[in-house]
């Protein structure tokens, strides 16, 4: 479990993003996850087994498109209903809030998820900008990927 007043710096294919650590319920190492043996047939890269549940985790590239690959180390699981949902990351680092100065911005155009935009601010660090995920938007986005997976599996069974 992470402390409340921290950010997670998440690396996705060479691009960094921030997430308030309060949105994450756990960060799991790759070795502690069940890897999907048939990634070509599925959106899901790995699961975390928790009692009778399996929490899915999705691997996204820098453009937040589904991707595949083995060059990742961890998964960040976000609090969501009916079960947590995970984002696979090439790397994850905890940053104290005092070290991070986030400025708000409103993404332009229609939100890409039913629960709003994916971002709500950015850390302006010198000439570099690092986007801050809006947890509700990110969860909704990942859940949409999960729904697509459910539809695909249902069709396969039919």
């Amino acid at each position, binding site marked *: 479990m992470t402390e409340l007043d921290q950010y997670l710096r998440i690396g996705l294919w060479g691009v960094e993003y921030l997430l308030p650590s309060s949105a994450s319920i756990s960060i799991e190492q790759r070795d502690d996850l069940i890897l999907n043996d048939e990634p070509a047939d599925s959106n899901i890269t790995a699961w975390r087994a928790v009692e009778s549940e399996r929490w899915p985790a999705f691997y996204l590239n820098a453009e937040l498109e589904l991707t595949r690959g083995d060059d990742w180390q961890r998964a960040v699981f976000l609090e969501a209903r009916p079960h947590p949902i995970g984002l696979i990351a090439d790397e994850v680092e905890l940053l104290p809030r005092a070290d991070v100065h986030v400025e708000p*911005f*409103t993404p*332009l155009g229609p939100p*890409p998820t039913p629960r709003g935009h994916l971002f709500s601010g950015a850390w302006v660090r010198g*000439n570099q900008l690092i986007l801050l995920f809006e947890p509700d938007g990110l969860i909704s986005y990942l859940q949409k990927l999960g729904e697509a997976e459910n539809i695909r599996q249902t069709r396969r069974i039919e």
Partner: protein
Amino acid sequence: MKPPIQDRIHTMIVPLAGSYLLVPSALIAEVINIAGFIRVPRSEKWMLGLLNWRARPVPVVCFDFFLTSDLPPAGPRSKIVIFYPLPGRKPWDFFGVLTSGEPQPRTFSDAQALSNTVENDNPYAAVTVKLETFVASIPNLETLKATFYPDT
């Protein structure tokens, strides 16, 4: 007799790839050189990215897309015009517009000087006016606001 100073209209002529914008100077915070901006994943085509302006993240848009549906690339003389937040928006909601060249200040003696309008059916142009050798569109801020912030 010269019109009173307060009746003069201060504007900027903003060159786009295929047309011009005529923008009241009061809407513009600054004109800057193109700095690197980052892509914002899952955003609209016309949303070119986010730049660091005075330590703020500022979205940059391609206004050409609203007028012509084209997405011309930035050229060697391109600039970014930083607009103040639209009416009713949050104080940090500045936005940038990519230009094809350096915007030029232009002062009109009064509104009569802008009365030579041409037909316009583009919702992003409030009015299109004929100036000497070219036409320029005054942006429709209400349409822009509805496009930029459709959920509010």
